[in-house]
């Protein structure tokens, strides 16, 4: 039954993570130094973007709900670094990181978060539905687990039309206890579809700790039940995530079907921008920040000679400047015209035929 996690239990969880999941960053055969630097830059961009989002929300520039990707950067960036142009991803309610990792434009993202006309969704979606379809990012969704079958359908298209793209289905640990999670993975497994189910196990489904939501706290174990490979990876390690996704993508493209990857980490920030986090002790979070994925990748780049501290600092400044530019762009951008209210409800031909919005 549900109980509040004690500081002692949290210490045990940190120790278990260090023992069982934490893996050192090592050079990957699939990543050139330039790739690693690009990954680092994108992780910094996500961090700066979502740090700014929280402030903008407090200042009322962002209207509705917003869920931050801070501390999860290694997962979206590591995964997308293993993808090609033409590959698809589906997202969660925490989609800013996925969008940036897949190549989304911060200006259009920030404009969408502020509900402006040049935003990705023309001001109709906001944070929870942000979509960069032209980049293969099939949209964020406000309902936990709901993108699972959408990713399966995307993979079905690839198989049916003989295309060699893969689809990565990002989802959280909360999604694993929705019925559609099971239906989707089973269907993809039965049909050997080219999809990668990437579970971002941040250990919290809003205020529910994962180990109290399930009897077996391993998501990857469930893969056995579907007859597909299941792996657990250090979710604070961008290179490890990259390697796991690269292997799964190669298998999927070769007709080997889906893989379930559990990227374990910990959400040391609130569930959403205004979460009071009354469900846990603050020192729980502090103990997890030692695994900060940006610090870890930065340290690795320095130690391996890929980049020096000056380059890392410059990457941070570049990221901050891009976010500041995006904020300025969004603040200056026009609101949608009120007569666009019905636009996009149906295809244009049907709207015209029925006179919708006239």
């Amino acid at each position, binding site marked *: 039954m549900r109980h509040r996690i004690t500081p002692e239990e949290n210490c045990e969880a940190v120790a278990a993570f260090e023992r069982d999941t934490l893996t050192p960053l090592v050079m990957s055969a699939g990543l050139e130094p330039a790739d690693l630097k690009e990954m680092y830059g994108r992780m910094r961009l996500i961090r700066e973007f979502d740090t700014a989002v929280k402030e903008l929300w407090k200042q009322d520039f962002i209207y509705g709900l917003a869920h931050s990707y801070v501390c999860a950067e290694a997962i979206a960036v590591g995964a997308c670094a293993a993808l090609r142009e033409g590959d698809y991803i589906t997202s969660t309610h925490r989609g800013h990181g996925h969008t940036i990792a897949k190549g989304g434009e911060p200006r259009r993202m920030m404009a969408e978060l502020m509900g402006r006309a040049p935003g990705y969704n023309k001001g109709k979606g906001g944070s929870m539905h942000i979509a960069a379809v032209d980049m293969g990012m*099939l949209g964020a969704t406000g*309902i936990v687990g709901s993108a699972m079958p959408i990713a399966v359908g995307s993979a*079905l298209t690839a198989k*049916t039309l003989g295309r060699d793209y893969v689809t990565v289905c990002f989802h959280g640990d909360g999604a694993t206890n929705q019925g*559609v999670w099971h239906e989707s993975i089973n269907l993809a497994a039965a049909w050997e579809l080219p999809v990668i189910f990437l579970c971002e196990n941040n250990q919290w489904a809003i205020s529910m700790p994962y180990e109290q939501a399930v009897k077996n706290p391993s998501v990857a174990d469930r893969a056995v039940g579907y007859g597909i490979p299941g792996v657990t990876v250090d979710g604070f390690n961008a290179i490890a995530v990259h390697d796991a996704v690269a292997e799964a993508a190669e298998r999927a493209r070769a007709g080997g079907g889906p893989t379930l990857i559990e990227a374990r980490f910990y959400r040391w920030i609130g569930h959403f921008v205004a979460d009071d986090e009354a469900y846990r002790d603050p020192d729980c979070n502090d103990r997890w920040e030692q695994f900060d994925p940006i610090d870890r990748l930065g340290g690795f780049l320095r130690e391996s000679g890929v980049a020096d501290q000056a380059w890392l600092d410059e990457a941070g400044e570049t990221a901050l400047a891009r976010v500041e530019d995006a904020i300025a762009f969004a603040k200056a951008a026009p609101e949608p015209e009120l007569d666009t209210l019905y636009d996009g409800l149906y295809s244009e031909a049907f709207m015209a035929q029925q006179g919708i919005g006239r």
Partner: protein
Amino acid sequence: MTATPAAEVQTRRMNVKRAINETLREEMQRDPTIIILGCDVGVRGNPFGVTKGLYQEFGAERVLDTPISEAAIVGSSLGAAATGLRPIAEVLFSDWITIGMDQLVNQIAKIRYMFGGAISVPLVIRAPVGAGGGQAAQHSQSFENWFSAVPGLQVVMPSTPADVKGLLRTAIRSDDPVLFFEHKRGYEIKGQVPVEEYTIPFGLADIVRQGNDVTVVAISIMRHKAMAAAEALAAEGIECEVIDPRTIYPLDYDTVLTSVEKTGRLVVVHEANRRSNIGGEIVSQVVERGFGLLAEPPRIVAGLDVPMPYNRALETLVIPDEARITQAIRGAVGR
């Protein structure tokens, strides 16, 4: 586009089941991006025989037998539609759409809009509706009002072979999601179907019978029961104008109002239970837009507000029949 076929058009006689099957086959021959997926649609050819032969003709890649996983069937259709296929998903009984409801209502209906028009969702969900076979509470329902209440969806509910063919073709070619409801008691209904390819636009009602005394709007197979009642009443000199809207959203209120302008009386007939249903919506539209046209209060003949009972006599009590329709029409005309 053509509307209901005129008499001089060359036709063939067939039943609704055959009309669906032929349309699916012809459209799949025309467009290689069309796939069919659902429980029992492939090797078995659907329990009603609706998809018979398609698996053999188009293969397992285009006619996909699925596990019993409605959320995955409906949701994966969305993912496929968003990335280049035109899926036709089948839910074996419309009652089970409830299992895929999040995908249908929160995703399929909204994705184009909430993504600012960036994604098209060209998909059809076919599902048998209706009662009359002793299938009790979980295999007998008609939910057309639920889905017509959701902006972003289209709801189609024809009951003649010619309408089925023209409207299913429009549904398959639509770039927006369509719920295509087939009445289980309507599969064997026969009629003439044009030989030439044709489509019927959504939102165009069929005036099945002209009359000056009362407008009878009848949905799905209630069209046939209403016609039987109308023909019998004609012998007494009561002339009904029977209208089959054929599509629930969009619904052709102009045709209904034009008729009410002539008759001053309105009876709406549907099998779905009365409470908060489409009959109330039709009446409200007519009252709002044409209150002055009405000489009498509108009447609704609908299923009774209970889960469908199993027993034959109890089931018969729930479903509107010719007698109840006749009684309502008599009430409306005061004879």
